[in-house]
């Protein structure tokens, strides 16, 4: 088995373990390359099916191609697709694009808060109706106790110390200094009432591994990652107002792999196009607060 085979095997094992142990399980799908690979791995683990609901937090500022792609794939792959949002902040214009908050507060409103309340079931969820081919309010409101997330350890310092199964208390906070042990292939699958577990099947993957796997499996990826002729492409996807493309000639998956291997991008952080990371405390502060 080569390195990609081993990564795939580990991720599939983790996904099956999560599916076996958690009654109310969901998987976050940000539409980006990592969580799309994760979705593909779920199809690997469950022999073509995805028996786990997918949750997307729609900030309504996402780049429009992302939403089109999300709904197309959801219908094609017969996904149990759910989205949630922060209706109050959007209606009250408590966002950065409205000019009423800074970027970090906007992230907290439209992402962290929306995510927390969607997972807990306090705020409405919308589910893709495959007959009607549109979203309808979801009547299932039980909290999700297991949440599968596509974070990678190489993305940034605090993520490098994550566990595969990482508990969060009811306030969603993460105690980095006192994480549960994981010995061999045995993970934390028992949890006290009121707590939930984040599951990270992609921890050991690097950005390059992700692209190599996309190439090997021919996974359909949203076109924003590729240069469409203007010499730029997105390397990391987010909300339109806070995400900028990088300069890059890569038009195909192969060209992205070559670009990454050439070392041309080693000096540029993967999330360098994400403006919120550069504000006070950045990603680690957001993450302690429940951000993915």
């Amino acid at each position, binding site marked *: *088995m080569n*390195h990609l*085979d*081993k990564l*795939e*095997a580990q991720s*599939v*094992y983790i996904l*099956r*373990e999560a*599916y*076996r142990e958690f*009654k109310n399980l969901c998987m976050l799908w940000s539409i980006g390359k990592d969580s799309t690979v994760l979705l593909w791995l779920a*199809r*690997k*683990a*469950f*022999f*073509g*099916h995805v*028996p786990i609901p997918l949750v997307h937090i729609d900030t309504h500022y996402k780049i429009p191609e992302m939403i089109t792609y999300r709904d197309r794939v959801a219908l094609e792959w*017969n996904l149990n697709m759910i989205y949630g949002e922060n209706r109050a902040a959007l209606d009250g214009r408590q966002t950065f694009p409205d000019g009423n908050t800074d970027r970090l507060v906007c992230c907290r409103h439209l992402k962290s808060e929306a995510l927390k309340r969607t997972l807990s079931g306090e705020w409405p969820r919308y589910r893709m109706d495959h007959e009607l081919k549109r979203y309808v309010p979801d009547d299932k409101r039980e909290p999700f106790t297991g949440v599968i997330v596509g974070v990678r*350890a*190489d993305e*940034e*310092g*605090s993520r*490098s*110390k994550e*566990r595969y199964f990482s508990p969060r208390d009811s306030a969603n906070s993460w105690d*980095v*200094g006192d*994480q*549960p*042990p*994981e*010995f*061999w*292939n*045995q993970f*934390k699958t*028992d*949890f*006290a009432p009121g707590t939930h577990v984040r599951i990270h099947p992609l*921890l*050991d993957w*690097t950005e390059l*591994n992700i692209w190599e796997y996309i190439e090997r*499996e021919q996974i359909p990826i949203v076109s924003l990652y590729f240069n469409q002729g203007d010499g730029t492409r997105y390397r990391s996807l987010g909300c339109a107002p806070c995400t900028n493309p990088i300069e890059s000639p890569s038009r195909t998956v192969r060209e992205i792999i070559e670009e990454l291997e050439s*070392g041309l991008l*080693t*000096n*540029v*952080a993967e999330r360098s196009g994400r403006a919120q990371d550069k504000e006070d405390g950045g990603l*680690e502060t957001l993450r302690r607060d429940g951000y993915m």
Partner: protein
Amino acid sequence: MNIVIVGHVDHGKSTVIGRLLADTGSLPEGRLEAVRESCLRNSRPFEYAFLLDALKDEQAQGITIDTARCFFKTASRDYIIIDAPGHIEFLKNMISGASRAEAALLVIDANEGIRENSKRHGHMVAMLGVRQVTVLVNKMDLVGYSEEAFEKLKAEYTAYLRQIDVEPVSFIPVSAREGDNIAESSELMPWHDGPTVLGQLDLFTTGRELHEKPFRLPVQDIYKFTSSGDDRRIVAGTIEAGTIRNGEEVLFLPSGKRSHIASIESFNTPRKESVSAGEPTGFTLSTQIYIRPGEIMVRPGDPQPEVGTRFRANIFWVGRVPMSKEKEYKLKLGTARATVRLAEIVNTLDAAELNLSRGKQQLDCRDVGECIFETTRPIAFDLASRNETTGRFVIVDNYEIAGGGIVLENLSGGETLLERHIRERERHWETGSVPTSDRERVNRHRSKFIVITGPPGTGKRALSRELENMLFRNGCSTYYLGMATMEHGIDSDLRVNEKNVEERLRRLGELARIMTDAGMIFITAIDDADDYDIATLKLLNDPHEILVVTVSRNDLQNAEPDLHLEEISDLVEAIEQIADLLTLREIIVDYQI
């Protein structure tokens, strides 16, 4: 390849990795400068370790608290380097890191010499099954790059490793701070003719020997996605050892059921004819047999795993609360879960001095020892010496993994926990003054515990209720107990999301013991009972008798049911068969519909 780096606190693990990343150009360019700048600002000397200690707490304390992963690539392969904390307080984090490594770098400070955790980590790495260990003698700059100092330390530590049966791959003298023998050979130590650290990494081998071992697939789950229009019933899991081909016969343990592989299933790959160790896979079987997650699928002709309830193991404990003999714990071995008790502490080991001590009554945090464990239900496992991956386990205490161990010996065959419990129970059993013979005379029948079992939805409940009704109309003292009654009554304290199968079974058996003692014909219907369930109920109901009726499918491998009904097409006819059997066995005298 996963490599873990271990050793005593401050001996320079993070520095070795920082240097390795810097010297192989694996860092984003800004990173090195940013850390240098921040050191300058805070007027502290720059250290390569700061590159890794990413979290705020760690920067403040200058120690690694949790394991971190670092990624880099050489021409020959991808590496994940796991930086494990050296501080004793964070032993559970060190074990978490080391347990998923294929090789270990053990760092010892040349100046400070062998310290407590140099030994403890060496011992732990061996126990966790990491077979390739290279020792880095670090901070050679502080001892003047002296060959003599290096050789002395090497001899001393080799002697220690020999005691715990570890044969190190190599010893490398390095100075991580100065970059000697990390990526490039050091000119200051021309006497060292071995590889650099970077060279050594590429020399570690990945285990192909797992393919040659007897086939083992711990069953992780059984899938049937009928609602998505898929009729395949797939037995899923990751192969821990060996290879298997399409069409081969397979055996599941501990249930003892057999079948043949009808197909090897996968998504987005060419059709597979065989699968080997390390691969996550799935099979459909040629016959519909009922198996549970947690069983081990093996090849009948291979050396077999052990099956039992009592074993001797080497264990390390990292729980906040000591491990005690008074408590029940959850055991996770492969994909199996079982209720387990600590039966005996044979000895505990001081890993630094290798002294054994006896007579401890509990395992305290960070204790390592040899213990005897007992599970309530039989499980399948291997001895770690024969098959590591199916010979190790963890113990969960209060929702958290609190210990781990490797199986040394199967001790099953003696009195089980259940047998001991029943012996004690019977010794204390308090009866009234009505003798059984009087009850039988008045009732005009003997007592019996009737268990009707089979797959869900086969009419077991209707049969049980009608049986109760008919027996009652015939003057019998009888009672049907529904499982919902148990769930919402006696069992209402058992949390639903924990399966608590053992405890539910025990309570049912205890109840049967009382009802049969009261002279009744006590009837219940349970889904999919296996040999173990029946044996347990039988034991618990002892000294009274049990009668087992299987419906639709007989899942019992060892015991024969008293009666097997292919299907219940006619209730009256089915009841007549049971009544005939009761008459034949002289439980009831006669019976009329």
